């Protein structure tokens, strides 16, 4: 029984990391109709930067977040500026940003090589830190990731639902011309969303560097999990993404423990396939339905 609970705990915390990663994809996709595949490269870029700062310059990886987050926001804004100039439909943005992803991934490969790199323990003491509550272990880094997921996702929710800015954003998504007539500055609003997305990339990258060994081709491995979280959670729905990511994390952990470790990677894909066939809009309410682009 305690094994089951531990698996639940681990799965939930991992889901937190998935949520941070996924937020940067779902917000622009749902609210700005931009499917930014380069987001995967962004996360890894920030992971590598965190590695540089921590392993080479011996900066505390958590402190490094303070450095990367502003750059993340900036990168998100720049991306939005470029994609809005290009005036593509959602699918076009996917392919265009995929090209960008290829370029970034190759650049990372040129600079950091394809060899696995990992922040050494001396520079990353958090890696082994954990809390022990009864028979259960709560890894420190994953807990931090989960906490930031809650902050980012719930924060985004409050921003979108409760604040004037959020209402403006949602109005702009549904009908940009009318929203503009009511004084909604679509450009500024879109930059705000993009900034949040970029921030989540920086945060996700930071935690990735603290947890995993990095190699440029590792970005591919996250596509399944992130798409599953994004689509299950409903496009552009930050709380939904958090919930969905937790579901994905728990399902994966359960499969890993109780079914077959090699099939664990298939779990998000299986969830995704079933969901697309049965209920394509996701488990939770999306900001915009797929196909309404």
């Amino acid at each position, binding site marked *: 029984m305690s094994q089951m609970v531990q698996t639940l705990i681990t799965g939930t915390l991992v889901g937190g990391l998935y949520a941070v990663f996924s937020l940067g994809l779902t917000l622009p996709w749902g609210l700005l109709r931009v499917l930014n595949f380069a987001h995967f490269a962004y996360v890894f870029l920030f992971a590598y930067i965190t590695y540089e700062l921590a392993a080479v310059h011996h900066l505390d990886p958590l402190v490094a977040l303070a450095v990367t987050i502003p750059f993340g926001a900036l990168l998100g804004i720049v991306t939005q500026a470029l994609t809005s100039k*290009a005036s*593509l*439909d*959602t*699918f*076009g943005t996917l*392919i*265009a*940003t*995929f*090209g*960008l*992803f*290829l*370029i970034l*991934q*190759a*650049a990372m*490969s*040129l600079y950091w090589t394809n060899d696995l790199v990992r922040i050494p323990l001396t520079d990353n003491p958090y890696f082994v830190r954990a809390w022990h509550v009864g028979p259960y272990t709560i890894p420190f880094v994953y807990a931090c990731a989960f906490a930031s997921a809650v902050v980012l996702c719930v924060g985004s929710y409050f921003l979108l639902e409760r604040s004037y800015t959020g209402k403006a954003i949602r109005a702009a998504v549904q009908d940009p011309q009318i929203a503009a007539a009511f004084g909604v500055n679509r450009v500024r609003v879109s930059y705000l969303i993009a900034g949040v997305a970029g921030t989540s990339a920086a945060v996700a990258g930071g935690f990735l560097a603290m947890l995993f060994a990095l190699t440029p081709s590792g970005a*591919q491995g996250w*596509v*399944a999990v992130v*798409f599953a979280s994004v*689509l299950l959670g409903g496009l552009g729905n930050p709380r939904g993404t958090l919930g969905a990511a937790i579901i994905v994390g728990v399902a994966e952990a359960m499969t890993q423990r109780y079914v077959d470790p*090699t*099939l664990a*990677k*298939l779990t998000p*894909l*299986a969830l*995704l*396939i079933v969901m*697309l*066939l049965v209920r*394509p809009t996701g488990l939770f309410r999306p900001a915009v339905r*797929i*196909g309404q*682009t």
Partner: protein
Amino acid sequence: MTSTGPLAPSPLTRRPTAIKLAAAAAVLAVLALLPVIEGTGRNSSYLIVYLYFVFFWVTQSTSWNIFSGYAGYFSFAQGAFYGAGVYTTVLLVEHLHMSILLIIPIGGLVAGLTALLTGLIVFGIRSLSGEIFALFSLSLGLGFGVLANNVNAIDGGSGRVLGQVSYPAWLGSVNQMLYVLALVLAVATVFCARAIQHSRMGYGLAAIRDDEHVGGTLGVPTLRYKLMAFSIGAMFAGASGALHAVLINFVTPDAAFGQQVPFYVIVMSVIGGRRHWLGPVLGATLIYTTNDRLTNLGMVELNQILVGLLLTVVVVGLRAGIVVQLFRRPAATAVAAAVAVLIVEVTGRGGDVITTFAWAMLSGVAILLVPDRVYQMTVRHRPRWWRLGRLTAARDETASPPKPRVSGGLR
């Protein structure tokens, strides 16, 4: 799926002129005779291998494009059909020692039937929209990749050696056999794609791509056409995979179902152009050639950067792909390519035919990527003989794209 590029002229109404037919025939004749003259000239036997791969990728991209390009339903699951063909060969050679000439069509059939069944579920029972289908196929494709990497159940181990594959002796050596059969497959696939494009079905698929609801209202049997295009494309992919197994020889699940084929067919077709049968041909040739040259020089990352750059630039700037732009500037492209060949030969950087060809193609592409405004300025005073293409005269006269004048409306 929304259409791309409202500025691109419709290539559907083209009919072959005498010049084009002659050029096509000449190219094919040269290619067909090449294995006979193998061993003469510079690096000829590598040329055979290189061209085999070009034929392979042309076949895969064109087969993908029949459904995903013409009907607009982006599929990330090409690997499934290609891999089905590969494993058909593995099984048939191991257990029945069949001739490759029989295996190829069977591989095609297996892949085609798989597509038909999948299509019935996905289009018939559930009727997924274009975008959802894309995501669905992405999940399937990724799933195949994971299975291929992790699950050993498929062939109970880490791979199978194909062993001796029987084929008629008159085809020559293994390389020559591969070359000839790949050429035949490529020609067949391209021919089929062209036939579909110009046929009634091609119009129906275009309607599905641009606006499926409207197409249905106009009487297009959308379900039937989607199933047909999907299955025909898969069939050629499977046949090509069945042949390719001979080259791979040591077949692992990753080689059969990995991400390389699905990824590259998309890139090649998008860059080349998805609305016209020539698009995937150009895209495949261009991408594979640069890939080959740069990988030989050890510049793998540079190759990826180039592919990514081409992809982004084409999608943002050319929308409908290189081929459409080629129809608008055929003479300029030919001149650029010829100049490049001249420079390369004179300065001695040629190396071999393939490198020269690569430079020629890249120069041509560079001309095609020049934005319209700049291009119009520089060639405003071009002579009569410049206008070779039938449509270029009419199209190029419109200096800037006319804006649609829509008043009112709720959009």
